[in-house]
């Protein structure tokens, strides 16, 4: 209220109106600043560090709520026993100065000491440990990136290098893939909400996506910070669609990288992973096709060879040879057969003659010739004396006739 009051009174009275030029006011501020503070010790976190070819270092010192520009000329930074890095918590000694040309103020650093990890770094480590313990990084939860990726969801800035790189790779690969971009801010306060909402939205409304690429191009730790936020980590973890994280610099890991199903070091690599698989498979398929064709050709020519051998074999090419052989064999058999039969026959004949001789020898007529005789009674041969009684008529057959006799007496011996 006082300021406004002063303003009103100075309007009315030209004598009180003091007009500064920009240079004047900046010069005055410079004097006030430099006189009131002189050299001070200041503690903060290094961020946005740049070293120009002149060797001078420019960076920002910050804490949770505020930041101040800092410069460390090469004369001083050459004496540093460690290299300054983004995210490093430092204690510096220097002079507050104003840079009149631009109306900015800064601290000119003469000396710096490392006091520990920066708060962002600490927050990163804390969250990382907490989510790790909770199991969000467990391999067991990692979803496999589909073998064939047809539809890719991309969550990144519409105008960023990441999208450009992804699309360039896909273009170069001539990949027949569908890309659906969900544009989000990838830095600033809203980034974490937009990124996590995008992941949720795509999961709810575009379940047909095969994979999500979530990331951005490189930047300082602060620039990448959204990807270190818990809400983003949880959205990635909850995603049903497999997530490939691809955040900026190759070396820096973000929390998103740990939670994602796969981490690609850069957006280009993420696109390569997605496209390469496809290309590999296409290559593999054409190779398999070639193999199949050459294999079946081999099989067929193997069969042809076999068939040719069959055709050339004597049985088919000169069948009469077999016939000739057989004729000869049959002749041979016939000869054998005839000679066998002949042999058989002459043997039988010999036996027959022998038997006739034997029969002849045994003939009863022959025995009668030698003086033996046979007695008959009523036509029956008498073998025992009991067969006849006294006065019986007995015929005695000799070799040349028959004696009719009457029995005088029967004596048993």
């Amino acid at each position, binding site marked *: 209220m006082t300021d406004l009051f002063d303003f009103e009174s100075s309007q009315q009275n030209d004598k009180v109106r003091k007009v500064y030029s920009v240079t004047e006011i900046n010069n005055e501020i410079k004097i006030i600043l430099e006189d009131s503070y002189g050299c001070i010790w200041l503690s903060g976190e290094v961020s946005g560090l740049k070293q120009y070819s002149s060797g001078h270092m420019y960076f920002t010192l910050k804490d949770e709520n505020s930041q101040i520009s800092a410069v460390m000329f090469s004369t001083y930074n050459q004496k540093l026993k460690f290299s300054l890095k983004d995210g490093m918590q430092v204690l510096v000694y220097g002079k507050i100065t104003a840079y009149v040309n631009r109306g900015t103020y800064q601290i000119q650093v003469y000396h710096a000491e490392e006091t520990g990890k920066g708060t962002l770094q600490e927050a990163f480590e804390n969250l990382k440990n907490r989510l790790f313990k909770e199991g969000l990084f467990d391999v067991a939860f990692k979803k496999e990136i589909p073998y064939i990726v047809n539809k890719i969801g991309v969550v990144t800035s519409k105008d960023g290098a990441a999208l450009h790189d992804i699309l360039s790779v896909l273009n170069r690969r001539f990949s027949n893939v569908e890309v659906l971009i969900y544009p989000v801010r990838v830095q600033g306060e809203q980034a974490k909400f937009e990124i996590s909402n995008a992941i949720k939205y795509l999961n709810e409304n575009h379940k047909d996506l095969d994979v999500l690429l979530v990331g951005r191009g490189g930047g300082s730790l602060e620039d990448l910070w959204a990807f270190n936020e818990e809400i983003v980590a949880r959205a990635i973890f909850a995603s049903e669609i497999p997530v490939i994280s691809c955040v900026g610099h190759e070396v820096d890991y973000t929390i998103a990288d740990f939670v994602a199903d796969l981490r690609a070091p850069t957006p280009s690599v993420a696109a390569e992973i997605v496209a390469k698989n496809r290309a590999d498979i296409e290559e593999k*398929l054409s190779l398999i096709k070639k193999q199949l064709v050459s294999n079946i050709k081999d099989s067929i020519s193997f069969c042809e060879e076999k068939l040719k051998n069959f055709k050339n074999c004597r049985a088919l090419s000169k069948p009469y040879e077999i016939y000739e052989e057989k004729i000869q064999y049959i002749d041979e058999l016939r000869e054998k057969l005839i000679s066998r039969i002949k042999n058989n026959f002459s043997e039988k004949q010999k036996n027959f003659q022998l038997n006739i001789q034997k029969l002849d020898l045994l003939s009863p007529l022959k025995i009668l010739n030698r003086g033996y005789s046979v007695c008959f009674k009523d036509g029956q041969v008498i073998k025992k004396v009991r067969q006849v009684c006294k006065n019986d008529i007995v015929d005695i057959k000799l070799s040349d006739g028959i004696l009719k006799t009457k029995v005088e007496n029967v004596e048993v011996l």
Partner: protein
Amino acid sequence: MKKNTFEMSLKRLEVIVDEMENSQLDIDKAMKLFEEGISLVNQCSQKLDETKKKIEILVEKNGKFEKEKFTQKEGTDEEK
């Protein structure tokens, strides 16, 4: 053809090629394997050709997202 069956088809194809290469098959079996193999190759190729290249961006209109064709700008801007 689902994603899993695609992978299974590829594995089956490898088996078929191996079998045709390593053993002296009779021609009927070889022809059957060849037939199966070629049909699997065709199915897989078909799956790969299923999608045509398409790049779309979601644009919010009256609180709803709509797909629009995305045309790439020349060069890249800084991250925003």
